[in-house]
């Protein structure tokens, strides 16, 4: 069976993508799945730090240069069933990534002999990140409750939409979109409060993509939540996306702020291994169980419950 590829991204740096990815990977491996983490953060690769593994030459740059395949790069960790591919740390010139490469990476990852492959992206909505997002099986956005991070999350979603609309719409329609996006932003939104409704008055757009997202929405996780308000923010963002873009986002849960996290990173010991019975571990467990259970099973569970 093909491995499921999950991509973790964020609009802003430092919101805890890497920590989220590694923790989710650890939790999945505890649940009995074979998991591979790929550190695709070309600017600041440090999954190895959060797992407490030493650096070595056997990293993703070899794959990007076409010298080897992913399977040979995968290294075991101290945690059973969990492997990882080190990010590029020993190159000082940024890789010129082509769209083709990003798509290829996802396809190669799918062919690997794992249950789940988690890819940790760098911050921001570069076209490469967007492309990986579009091709992944599960798309996870991480944000913190700060306005800066939330704003960038919205920009990420906008970029994702524009990207797709460019592919699926006529050139003329896309020009119309670009021209009107700014106007829409500053316009008083009264009658139509959804961006999609605004666009649909113009011919040439195809919304198949939006429709497909109804089934597999972008998942939103709130990291470093410190209060009840922070947790509810997930629902608020979901609602704003629905009202503003008519774009389905699913809130999968919030992760509490915990001082043990940075302390454990200092000790280079994953916090979920060091302190496995904390609320933090419970929150990851809920998310991992929810995402790893096939939709049919969840639907059936729901039906029996109702």
């Amino acid at each position, binding site marked *: 069976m093909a491995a499921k590829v999950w991509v973790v991204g964020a609009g802003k740096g430092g919101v805890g993508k890497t920590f989220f990815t590694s923790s989710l990977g650890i939790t999945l491996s505890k649940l009995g799945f074979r998991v591979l983490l790929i550190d695709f953060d070309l600017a600041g690769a440090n999954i190895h730090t959060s797992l407490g593994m030493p650096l070595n030459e056997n990293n993703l740059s070899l794959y990007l240069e076409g010298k080897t395949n992913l399977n040979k790069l995968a290294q075991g960790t101290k945690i059973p069933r969990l492997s990882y591919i080190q990010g590029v740390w020993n190159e000082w010139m940024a890789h010129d990534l082509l769209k083709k490469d990003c798509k290829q990476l996802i396809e190669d990852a799918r062919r690997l002999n794992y249950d789940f492959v988690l890819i940790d992206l760098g911050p921001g909505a570069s076209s490469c990140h967007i492309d990986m997002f579009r091709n992944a099986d599960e798309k996870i956005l991480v944000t913190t*409750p700060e306005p800066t991070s939330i704003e960038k999350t919205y920009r990420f979603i906008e970029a994702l939409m524009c990207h797709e609309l460019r592919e699926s719409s006529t050139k003329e329609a896309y020009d119309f979109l670009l021209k009107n996006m700014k106007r829409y932003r500053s316009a*008083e939104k*009264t009658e139509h*409060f959804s961006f999609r409704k605004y666009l649909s008055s113009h011919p040439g757009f195809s919304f198949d993509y939006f429709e497909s997202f109804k089934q597999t929405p972008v998942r939103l996780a709130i990291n470093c939540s410190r209060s009840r308000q922070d947790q509810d*923010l997930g629902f*608020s963002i979901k609602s704003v996306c629905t*009202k503003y873009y008519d774009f389905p986002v699913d809130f999968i849960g919030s992760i509490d702020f915990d001082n043990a996290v940075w302390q454990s990173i200092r000790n280079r010991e994953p916090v979920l291994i060091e302190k496995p019975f904390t609320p933090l571990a419970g929150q990851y467990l809920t998310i991992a169980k929810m995402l790893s259970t096939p939709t049919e099973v969840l639907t059936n569970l729901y039906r029996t419950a109702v």
Partner: protein
Amino acid sequence: METGSQFSYYEILEISPHCPQHEITTAYERMRQTYSGGNPAIYTMFTEAEARELLKLVEEAYSVLGNKTLRALYDEKVGQVGKKFDLSFEALQTESKVVFNESPKKVTSAKVEYKVDADFEKELKEIASWDGAQLKKVREYKKFSLEKISEITKVSSYYINAIENVDPTNLPAPVFVRGYVSQISKVLGLDEKKVCDSYMKIFKEKLGQK
């Protein structure tokens, strides 16, 4: 809001039309929190004025969906394709009062017109021992139908008929019958105690005969 408008109340609250009542309240609380001032989630997306507009919509939606009766009415109206209805809270509330009229049924005036017969009135005062036939006579004299008297006294017309025929087999225990007779005589404007005492004597005799 009217039928056929752009967004249904369910869409405004972002819930499924089949969701249970408590989920509506949860959704409403989340919406209110989202669109009332200072929430970081609306920052750069909606201006304050827009958020206020949205909040108004949310409040309107919840004023209808939050009430089970109004929600049922709303669902019914939305389901009828091709017709136009006013779906605002006020309209639905007014309608709900019409459809589900819960105020108690008004008793039509107890006063019934009848011709005063001086001789008969005099005769009535002299009766010492009341039986069913006499009660019936008075009732007919005062122009009360069986249904009418049953409506006023809340005693079923079947019992009243049985009382007038002094038929214990179709009546409950004497203590109840006494109550019924007391009610009937009150409506007929007779001396309750006198009527009851004499009627119950006859009634008990008949009961003993059986």
